[in-house]
């Protein structure tokens, strides 16, 4: 039994686990990021440099300032026109991908040799407006000893997330109309309390910043915000404060990023099992603030299922529940105000999260279906029988083909795959139309025997829908690619190709209709808006639930010939979202609303629903004296686009990304 297993067994499992999960991630030479249970490590370990997480304060030292991920890792077409992936961090690193160029050029009508659209090489700090500083606030801030910066590159780095328009603006060197004026790095909960208090006192805006992987425009600053804006970077709050093996929970600081959290827990033989595709960089606080979802939610649950307790600093003070009972009937769950609040109600500083022993055994798998319809029917049945593996994802034919384009030249696992596939085609796939077939990738976890049993059950169901088991390697490969796919957009952008992904959740009976209609809508909208080349539209079912599924779309096109590609892109995405809603899909399954989708909020949750959210915020405002209150109401909204809202007596502002203050403010 797990609890009895001796420490060397634990160690072994932990090692294995590390290899599997983090094998492609950055190597770690840390010895000191152990577990600390002090009140505030900043105090314990001195004011600077104590926290060795993966993320330094100067993020731009390891990460791209104008693209995805680590600076040393990227796709490029080399002199021979062959694609390669640079760096050493990932399984794919250093490999040549011989088929990518052809796929890329054929799919997008792009030309690797002739049509390049390179990015501005470096940030031009001169182009940036000087910081709008609030002297009184700064004075108080300095007194606390909390590290901060006004440097241009720090500020720009925190002015955006990873929406296409944000990255495009950086690449063009256009930057942003408004960026944070100050970046602060609190070391612990108490630091955050101080910062929020000071901000309230001096009428300064605070924007919590976790991993910066937001894809909703949530991190953007309102362009005409006149107050000083502080970006509260949580990256130094990255410790596991304690770990409770009896109850299988851990107390974790909200700034920790996914890869560090898993690594640290793995060392102790545990994991959270929360693995969003952005887990290398996104933070616990960000997950809570956006209602994130990880690929293995079938076993571990989504973030809302994992959180047992949280501490939140609001303008009105700190809020937390008084106990850590596993479930309570004490009125609506106040955690749910914070889950999905997208930084508008307060800063999450600490979270008690469920943990699990590292599973003894993990096995990948894959199934090939004659077509997408059969695949969806199979996933539906799997969900019905409630036997979904830790992860099950169904890619459509476009993604299947794209997967082929990413075949590396050499690599044991990949060679096997190609070889295997060849054999496969010859022996089994006869009769499958290569332009129809699609693949599901599977990941099983648990003890060995159960995994094998489970595996059989799933393959049996698949067989009923014409699915053929297509090997472990195919499956594993799919999951390895998960983390490098995000790097591909930057490659596209070098050659006039813009790309983005978006997601939704939808009842089972509408999955197929929704996928088909959304793809068709995109194709048509592109045509109507003068896109000269056929767009790539592709989707996959990434999560299954009892009552429906999560569907994830990729969408890309060659923008050569367009005057304003970002605008065109946004119009098409807008239309696609309309189409999703018309077909019974949700506004978002896990990305959130941000500014990108706020215009649909009212339609999505109704007037009354919006009013309810608003009143929660009003509660946080209620300490404000009457005269101030009326002042607040008549005050012009800082932007139509972004709702910056004073949340307390002293008018500290925490951003509100949902639409609900629009009416009030205007």
């Amino acid at each position, binding site marked *: 039994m797990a609890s009895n297993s001796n420490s060397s067994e634990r160690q072994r499992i932990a090692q294995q686990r590390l290899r599997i999960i983090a094998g492609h991630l950055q190597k770690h030479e840390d010895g000191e990021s152990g577990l600390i249970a002090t009140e505030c490590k900043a105090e314990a370990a001195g004011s600077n440099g104590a926290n060795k997480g993966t993320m330094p304060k100067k993020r731009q030292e390891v990460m791209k300032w104008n693209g995805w991920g680590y600076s040393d890792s990227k796709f490029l077409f080399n002199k021979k026109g062959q694609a390669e992936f640079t760096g050493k961090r990932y399984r794919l690193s250093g490999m040549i991908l011989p088929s990518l160029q052809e796929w890329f050029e054929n799919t997008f009508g792009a030309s690797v040799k002739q049509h390049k659209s390179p990015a501005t090489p470096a940030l031009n700090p001169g182009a940036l407006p000087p910081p709008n500083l609030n002297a009184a606030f700064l004075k108080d801030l300095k007194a606390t000893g909390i590290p901060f910066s006004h440097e241009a590159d720090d500020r720009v780095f925190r002015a955006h997330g990873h929406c296409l328009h944000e990255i495009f603006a950086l690449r063009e060197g256009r930057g942003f109309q408004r960026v944070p004026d100050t970046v602060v790095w609190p070391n612990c909960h108490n630091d955050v309390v101080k910062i929020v208090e000071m901000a309230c006192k001096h009428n300064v805006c605070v924007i919590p910043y976790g991993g910066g992987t937001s894809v909703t425009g949530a991190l953007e600053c309102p362009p005409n915000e006149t107050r000083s804006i502080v970006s509260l970077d949580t990256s130094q709050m990255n410790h596991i404060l304690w770990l409770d093996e009896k109850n299988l929970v851990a107390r974790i600081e909200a700034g920790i990023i996914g890869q560090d959290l898993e690594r640290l827990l793995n060392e102790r033989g545990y994991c959270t099992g929360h693995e969003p595709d952005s887990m290398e960089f996104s933070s616990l606080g960000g997950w809570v603030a956006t209602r994130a979802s990880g690929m293995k939610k079938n076993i571990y649950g989504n973030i809302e299922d994992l959180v047992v307790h949280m501490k939140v600093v609001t303008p009105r003070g700190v809020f937390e529940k008084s106990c850590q009972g596993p479930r309570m009937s004490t009125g609506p769950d106040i955690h749910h105000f914070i889950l999905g609040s997208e930084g508008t109600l307060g800063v999450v500083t600490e979270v008690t999260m469920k943990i699990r022993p590292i599973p003894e055994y993990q096995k990948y798998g894959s199934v090939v279906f004659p077509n997408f319809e059969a695949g969806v029917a199979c996933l539906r049945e799997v969900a019905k029988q409630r036997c979904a593996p830790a992860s099950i994802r169904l890619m459509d034919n476009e993604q299947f083909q794209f997967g082929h384009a990413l075949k590396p030249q050499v690599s044991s696992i990949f060679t096997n795959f190609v070889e295997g596939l060849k054999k496969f085609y010859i022996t089994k796939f006869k009769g499958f139309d290569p332009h129809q077939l699609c693949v599901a990738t599977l990941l099983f976890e648990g003890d060995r025997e159960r995994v094998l049993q489970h595996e059989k059950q799933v393959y049996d169901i698949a067989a009923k829908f014409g699915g053929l088991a297509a090997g472990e390697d195919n499956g594993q490969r799919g999951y390895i690619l998960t983390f490098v796919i995000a790097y591909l957009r930057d490659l596209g952008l070098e050659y006039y190709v813009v790309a983005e992904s978006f997601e939704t959740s939808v*009842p089972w*009976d*509408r999955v197929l*209709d*929704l996928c*088909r*209609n959304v793809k*068709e*809508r995109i194709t048509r909208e592109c045509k109507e808006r003068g896109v000269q080349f056929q767009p790539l539209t592709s989707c996959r079912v990434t999560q299954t639930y009892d009552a429906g599924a999560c569907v994830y779309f990729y969408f890309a096109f060659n923008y050569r010939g367009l005057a304003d590609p970002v605008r065109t892109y946004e119009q098409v995405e807008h239309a696609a979202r309309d189409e999703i*809603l*018309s*077909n*019974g899909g949700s506004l978002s399954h896990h990305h959130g609303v941000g500014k990108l989708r706020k215009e649909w909020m009212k*339609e999505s949750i109704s007037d009354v629903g919006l009013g309810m959210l608003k009143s929660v915020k009003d509660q946080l405002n209620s300490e404000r004296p009457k005269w101030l209150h009326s002042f607040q109401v008549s005050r012009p909204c800082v932007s139509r686009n972004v709702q910056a809202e004073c949340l307390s007596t002293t008018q500290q502002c925490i951003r509100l990304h949902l639409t609900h203050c629009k009416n009030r403010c205007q």
Partner: protein
Amino acid sequence: MASATLYSQRDPMLKKRDDFEDILEERRKSSDLKYALRCYAPVLYKGLTPCKANMLKNMVLQSDNVKYVINQVSLESGEALDIVHEEASVILEEMAHRLQISTVRFFAYALTKAFKTIFQHICVNMDGIQRLQQAIQEHPVVLLPSHRSYMDFLLMSYILYTYDLALPVIAAGMDFMGMKIIGEMLRMSGAFFIRRSFGGDKLYWAVFSEYVKTMLRNGFAPIEFFLEGTRSRTCKSLTPKTGLLNIVMEPFFKGEVFDVHLVPVSISYERILEETLYARELLGVPKPKESTSGLLKARRILSENYGSIHVYFGQPVSVRSLAQGTINRSKYTLVPRHLPRKPMEETQSFVNDTAYRIVRLQEDSMVLKPWVLMASLLLQNLEGLELSVLTEQTLWLRGLAQCYGAFMDWPDHAPAAKVVSSSLALHKGLVCVSEGWVSLVVGEPQVPMTAEEALFNRAVSVLSCASYRNQVLHVFIRPAILAVAMHNADSSKKDEVYNCFSFLYTMFSNEFILCPGDTVQDFDEACYLLVKSGAVQTLQQGIVGTDRSQPILSFLKGLLDSFLQGYQLVCRFLREEASDGLTEKQYVPAVRSFAVKLILAGNLRCYEVLSSDMQKNALAALLRTGAVRKVKIADQVTLKVNKMALNSFEDTLGGHLPTQKAVLARL
């Protein structure tokens, strides 16, 4: 987008008139048999492989919707499930088509023979065919032809076969089923049969709508049906029925298909096979039961010349773009899609508007022959006209019609006199020319007749002639209503004229294609056209006639005259004769004999009022406006009248000041 083209078609100047091709020309040159046996391999929706009729039936019976209703019916009626299921299967059996290429080939052969004898040309617009071919591959397509003749759907299939396009499945009325062999043959050429009324029959409705939707969703074949519901006996377009249209749009509303394309098709006959048959029917000579022998008697037809046919396939109309901004499809996502639901109000009105739009598109592309203009003139001169005057006026009217956007087929380079005389020749059954004087034919004088028989004979020829005039009504109807309104209004003030216009518009909205919500828009259109033709000026202070206005305005008023008289007569009849206990059934014969009496007494000169069509339309208008109510007593539906309202309608229609303003205010 399609909606934009829809509007642009409204403007006649923008309408590109496509080139027509005579499909008989090729047939006259080559072997009919070869044609019937030729390779037929139409392109299909997204490369679909066609499915067997049986498979289709299974899909329908296994569908969630039908299964749900079977369950429900079984629960409600206490019948066993399998019995209800059997019932459903019988309904489907009775309904379903059994499209068979061999039957189609038989028809291709037989119809070619027949068409070549009775028609001079069958002209089809080539661009329309190309557009249709494109549309069929991309979206489910619904063909919506106008309906003037039994021929219509055979003709449609014939054309599609000729152009190697997917053969449609056609919703046909059950009355065909009476004709055993023909019914089955039609079935095998793609017709499916629906009962005329199945009001409360849930099961029937479920099977029927699922049948249509299954074919549509899967793109098995273009669906074809007649928006007008039935053949128009008068050659006027009928107010559209929306039931089937709603069914074919639903898969789009529910997200089951990306879009549905509606293709209006205008079929214009130079001479309708049923011409006098219809007139008799309207006059109450009972409609011959649609029996095989009845149709075969039509062999006589084969010895006649019916001129040419023009078939215009319109621009496909995208339901998606029409619905943009009007229909919120997400409202359909909160209830499982297989549950039968009444259409929401916004949907109902959208479907209704669309139906009107499509019928107007059909009307706009009706190809008009010179004869329809001549018939319009002759009906305003029942005593006859001098040939030269008729020729001159026909030319004048041609100018006006074209100014109003009519789609005329006027022979190129032929002298007007020749055009007129050949039209007269083709319609010699209706008109005669003697010593330069043109008048309507009136029965065979040698047979001794009662006065009443003579009257009916005359009525037959008037109504037959009217059926040609009716073909051009859509061109003139809006300006004509405005002309009457200007005449009736107290002053030329725009709002007063508008009030009169609006009254007439409401009264006549069962008679002509006038979409209830479009009054203002149509008023503007009417003003625009009258100004364009130089008949009026719209000035600050109002709408006034010009020097040129007299002939135009009086022609336009004349066009509506028989309708105004007819409606007044109905009002008068109801006021005087329907005091108590007039049942709905008695209504038509009673008005008819009332009118006959008046005509015989020399107090009424309008024969068209004898038409049951006009009588029914008038009653419908009165029911709609509340001047008459239906009351159910025992099994009988009787009509209760509001005499004051009738009185005031009668006055207003006659251009007199209404005695009861209050009633009018309600309109």
